[in-house]
């Protein structure tokens, strides 16, 4: 990912992660029941599903493939980098794995998860 296009695409990937997180949570009956008991009124998740489809269409093919593959394999497709360690597989990342200027996402060469360097 290079320049502002990289930033835009990274934003889409991170939005996709947020939407999937919400869908995972709010599609679960037990969670919805607990929220209702706490006084909330969870509505239908269809708007989130539509947004997910839109984001998958908008994000570049390369990133959507990485994302979907990692999500299918691990459930959570994007993880943070903490002190040069992939929080997904806990491998120490080589210096060469650092993102370029203005970039916040790379792919972990060990586990295939998308790494967030923000």
């Amino acid at each position: 990912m290079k320049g502002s296009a990289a930033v835009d695409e990274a934003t889409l990937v991170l939005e996709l992660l947020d939407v999937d997180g919400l869908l995972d949570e709010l599609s679960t009956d037990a969670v919805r029941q607990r929220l209702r008991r706490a006084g909330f009124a969870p509505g239908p998740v269809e708007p989130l599903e539509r947004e997910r489809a839109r984001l998958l269409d908008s994000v570049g093919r390369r990133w959507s493939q990485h994302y979907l593959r990692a999500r299918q394999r691990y459930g959570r497709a994007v993880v943070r980098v903490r002190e040069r360690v992939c929080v997904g597989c806990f491998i120490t990342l080589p210096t060469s794995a650092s993102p370029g200027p203005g970039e916040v996402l790379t792919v972990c060469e060990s586990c295939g998860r998308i790494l967030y360097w923000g």
Partner: protein
Amino acid sequence: MSTELITSALDTPLFHLDLKHRRRENALTDLAAFAHARGLVRDPERLHDALLRRERVVSFAVGRGVAIPHLRSLVVSAPHVLIARAKKGIDWKAPGGQPVTLVIAVLAPHDHPLESFLERVEHAAEATRLVKRRLRLMSDDPAVRLAAWREGA
């Protein structure tokens, strides 16, 4: 804006006093900026957008003049609770149309355990059920506010 930060125990909320805005979007912007200024959130704009996205499915307003924005997201660095009062009231499109005067935001990183996150949300809801306790959560006295939050924890 008058603010106060208390950081002693693991589950101590940050009290963010006196939200000045009357619109929900602006109040959420303020809360996100407050959390960002304390290193609890990486990207306040994304947090704001993510909160609004969640609210499209689950309204944060629970009635009684209370809103409980809650979210797990990658942009949140550490689990935390922000408590804010809005003396003028925020138009939150709440059930019954009552303006929101007390906001308790429960935020956590996206990989934070769901169970722990939901427990905090439930604690926030429980803490705002009774008028007396809500008033104590909005007290000028930090010790009173903290005691009101910790009850039943």
